């Protein structure tokens, strides 16, 4: 059971790619999307199954391999899932499902290519979640990257190609930085498996090539900051989000850049660079810059998706400062905010897809008063934004609270205060967006608009339910984590 569940994370999308390319091309469209549904739903189920098995057996992690069993010698890169990676795998399944639901109505003739690439990107992200080796992490980062460049350029339009190229260039610089850093770390450790590196770095100040390691850390932080889109490494992010097709920006905004950047940073900080105050402090400052910068920049934007992109930069900052606080509370806060961000940001991108599909534009100056015409979209976007701004009963409040407490406790009172104060800007751009798009009088040319069709609204509703339920049930979840000895 457990073997089957773990292997399905990597095996199932591969199988799906085989299946997808067997079917005839004429009928490929709808079938391929349906196969995608099955894969993403099975992934969510498998994550839940693994999670419950993990708790049933009282284990911290499950190790597994795909092709052949490996003896655990120095440098052997096995796969492993633990609590955090399972939460993340669930998020991947959830966001992929939302993206597919959006794509069903918007992608048209490109369905087969879209699903193929979605499977590749899922493989990449699942790989990031399950690997236990820095080099394998880089490999899967690159896979995720390549698949997302192509997906952004999927429609072959001018803007999409431009966004894809910008992402590609920045991502290539990031890869060079990360790989250079890995080379330097490898000099010291002789292996890139998380545990080996952590052991070798335990006493890094006295290590033989210590100055190399300092350079490696700088390159490492810079590389992953580019991948995550932390300010000031964020340049490509709004362009990529804005130019991508609707269903692809759901995927990118909801999970891809978070996996490639944020998850990797959390994972590496949590299991490789353990207790290195220098790295934590640096990330804390970068995270705070990101929070303020993203929120302020979002206030001035005029495009629905661009506002969401800048708000992503801001929210990523929260996750980063959570993990940079270095405490267990901060880690749990970051993990939960990761989940919450995947939920509410996906909701918002689905909403933007709905608006784009129905009105043909995402320019907020040309929109207005859609609340009456698109009630589902309006309500779900309000819920998602309230969650993002940290309004109490909703999910975002709790994770933000945990993060701010953790930062506060890590002797960085100013950091906590800045993070708290930046919530005002979150509320500000939320109000700007809602007022321009959903509230106010209906624009004359929008009177014929109707609610988005079937699956898009379904995705928004499902994600809103998750947001609300998670918020309401949060004390239970926290208590459960407490009982399990995790918090």
């Amino acid at each position, binding site marked *: 059971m457990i073997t089957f569940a773990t292997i399905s994370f990597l095996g199932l999308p591969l199988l799906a790619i085989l299946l997808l390319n067997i079917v005839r091309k004429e009928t490929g469209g709808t079938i391929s999307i349906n196969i995608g549904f099955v894969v993403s739903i099975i992934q969510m189920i498998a994550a839940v199954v693994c999670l419950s098995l993990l708790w049933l057996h009282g284990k911290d992690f499950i190790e597994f391999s795909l092709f052949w069993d490996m003896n655990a010698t120095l440098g052997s890169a096995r796969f492993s899932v633990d609590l955090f990676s399972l939460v993340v795998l669930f998020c991947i399944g959830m966001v992929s499902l939302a993206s597919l639901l959006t794509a069903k109505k918007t992608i048209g003739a490109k369905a087969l290519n879209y699903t193929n690439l979605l499977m590749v990107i899922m493989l990449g992200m699942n790989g990031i979640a399950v690997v236990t080796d820095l080099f394998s992490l880089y490999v899967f980062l690159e896979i995720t990257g390549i698949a997302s460049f192509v997906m952004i350029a999927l429609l072959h339009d001018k803007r999409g190609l431009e966004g*894809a*190229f910008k992402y590609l260039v920045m991502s290539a610089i990031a890869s060079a930085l990360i790989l250079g850093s890995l*080379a330097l770390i490898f000099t010291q*450790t002789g292996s890139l498996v998380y545990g080996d590196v952590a052991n070798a770095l335990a006493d890094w100040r006295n290590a033989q090539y210590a100055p190399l390691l300092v350079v490696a850390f700088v390159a490492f932080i810079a590389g992953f900051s580019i991948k995550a889109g932390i300010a000031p490494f964020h340049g490509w992010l709004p362009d990529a989000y804005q130019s991508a097709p609707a269903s692809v920006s759901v995927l990118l905004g909801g999970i891809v850049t978070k996996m490639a950047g944020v998850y990797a940073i959390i994972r590496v900080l949590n299991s490789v660079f353990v207790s290195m105050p220098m790295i934590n402090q640096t990330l804390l400052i970068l995270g705070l810059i990101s929070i303020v910068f993203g929120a302020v920049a979002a206030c001035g934007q005029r495009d629905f998706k661009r506002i969401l992109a800048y708000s992503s930069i801001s929210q990523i900052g929260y996750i980063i400062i959570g993990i940079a606080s270095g405490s267990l509370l901060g880690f749990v806060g970051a993990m939960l905010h990761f989940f919450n961000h995947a939920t509410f940001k996906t909701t918002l991108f689905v909403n933007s897809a709905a608006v784009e599909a129905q009105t043909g534009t995402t320019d907020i100056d040309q929109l207005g008063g859609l609340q009456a015409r698109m009630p589902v979209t309006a309500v779900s976007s309000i819920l998602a934004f309230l969650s993002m701004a940290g309004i109490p009963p909703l999910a975002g409040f709790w994770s933000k609270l945990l993060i701010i407490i953790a930062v506060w406790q890590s002797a960085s009172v100013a950091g906590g205060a800045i993070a708290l104060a930046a919530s005002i800007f979150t509320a500000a751009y939320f109000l700007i967006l809602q007022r321009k798009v959903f509230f106010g009088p209906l624009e004359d040319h929008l009177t014929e608009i109707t609610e988005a069709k079937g699956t898009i609204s379904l995705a928004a509703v499902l994600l809103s339910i998750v947001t609300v339920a998670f918020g309401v049930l949060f004390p239970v979840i926290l208590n459960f984590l407490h009982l399990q000895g995790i918090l």
Partner: protein
Amino acid sequence: MNIVSAIILTAALLMIIAGMFCLVRTYNLIRIIIAIELAMKAITLLLVFSGWVNGNLALAQTFVITMIVLEVIVAVVAAGIIVSLYRKNGNVDIRELTNLKG
């Protein structure tokens, strides 16, 4: 201090600097990819160097091989995007790529 090590590190750094400088300075999309490739050469050198230093050359070589495969695919995708952009824009000038801003 081993003199060869110093020279290898210096050479790698010079390659990276050349790549980054080219990256910032050029207006040609294809040259951007060449710049990235140059930087990747330096990284390859660094990887093998680290295996050379710590005696785990076999592992370092597997890294290099995987990395080369990834590099090729990135280059192909980049070339594909550039060719498509050329079909749209009629040139490969990076200054044309400013439709998305703000």
